[in-house]
């Protein structure tokens, strides 16, 4: 009896390229990252892709699997294969360097542009700050803080594909966690940074980010929070 195989189509090249077909033996609990690694180690060592932790912590291995952005190390083949076939492409909305590796520069630059860096208040105490775990701000920050920066949401966002300047769900979600950080001293500057002409108000609330986020975060909700916060700041004359 012959071994069960998976038909795999993988994007080869850069912005211009083509899908190439491979056959990979099926394994129990096989992930999409296992499949890509098998091809690189057994068939074509020139296949380029990115991974690090293999356990869903680092956010390195995101790719487009059968048209959907996913973290490949935690995506089982059985969940996504259709007719024993899987098509693997690089993430959308980011320049392709080679094969499955994309240039993440714009993605992380936007975190910086959205004020993603914590700025302590001028009168910050030397001791640990005490933040009540059940306070509204702490709970709002908690809801978005587990982002691993995989860019799955950014890849799935249609607004990013329409407007390349749009800050995107991950950067805005990060800004929202800091807006709710009571220790932070740059609230006004951050709200100004996220309310520009390619900021939170450009979001259409289509919720692709929420749908695709492997950590089940809700960037759409975070962006809605930013919209409300910017309106309140504008009404008070702070913005």
């Amino acid at each position, binding site marked *: 009896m012959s071994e069960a195989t998976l038909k795999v189509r993988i994007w080869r090249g850069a912005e211009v390229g083509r899908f190439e077909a491979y056959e990979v033996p099926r394994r129990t609990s096989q992930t999409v990252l296992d499949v890509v690694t098998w091809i690189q180690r057994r068939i074509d060592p020139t296949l380029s892709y990115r991974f690090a932790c293999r356990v869903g912590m680092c956010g390195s291995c995101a790719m487009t699997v059968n048209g959907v952005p996913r973290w490949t190390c935690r995506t089982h083949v059985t969940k996504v294969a259709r007719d024993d076939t899987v098509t693997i492409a690089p993430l959308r909305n980011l320049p392709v360097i080679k094969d499955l590796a994309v240039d993440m520069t714009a993605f992380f630059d936007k975190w910086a542009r959205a004020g993603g860096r914590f700025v302590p208040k001028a009168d910050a105490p030397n001791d640990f700050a005490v933040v009540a775990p059940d306070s509204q701000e702490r709970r709002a920050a908690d809801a978005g803080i587990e982002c691993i920066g995989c860019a799955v949401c950014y890849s799935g966002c249609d607004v990013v594909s329409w407007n390349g300047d749009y800050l995107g769900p991950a950067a805005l979600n990060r800004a929202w966690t800091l807006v709710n950080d009571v220790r932070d001293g740059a609230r006004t500057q951050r709200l100004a940074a996220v309310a*520009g002409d390619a900021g939170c108000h450009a979001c259409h609330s289509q919720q692709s980010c929420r749908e695709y986020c492997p950590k089940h975060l809700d960037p759409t909700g975070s962006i809605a929070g930013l919209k409300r916060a910017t309106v309140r700041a504008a009404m008070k004359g702070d913005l």
Partner: protein
Amino acid sequence: MAQRTARAETLLWLAQRASAAVLAVCVAVHLATIIYAVQGGLTAEEILGRTRGSAWWLAFYSIFVVAVAVHAPIGLRTIVREMTPWRGASLDGATAIAAIALIAFGWRAIGGLVG
């Protein structure tokens, strides 16, 4: 500059949301009136008989026109910025012209209806 842009974008977003809330009511009343008005056939005399000299319909459609003139140009500006490279003062000017045109055409229509 960035702060001024942020304030302007925030207020435009708020204006579009607020006008959408007004339009939700206006469109519902408008559609319900259409359904009611066509029950016994539809004639210009019947419509004008209901609307001519009516302070209520004047007030209602005035609010409707203002809400449209606020809501639609902001949405068009967003669509243009998503679908084309057009940005900046010329686009903002075109948005204002669209708003003025909608007010003008709307008032003209109201004049015909209640005048």
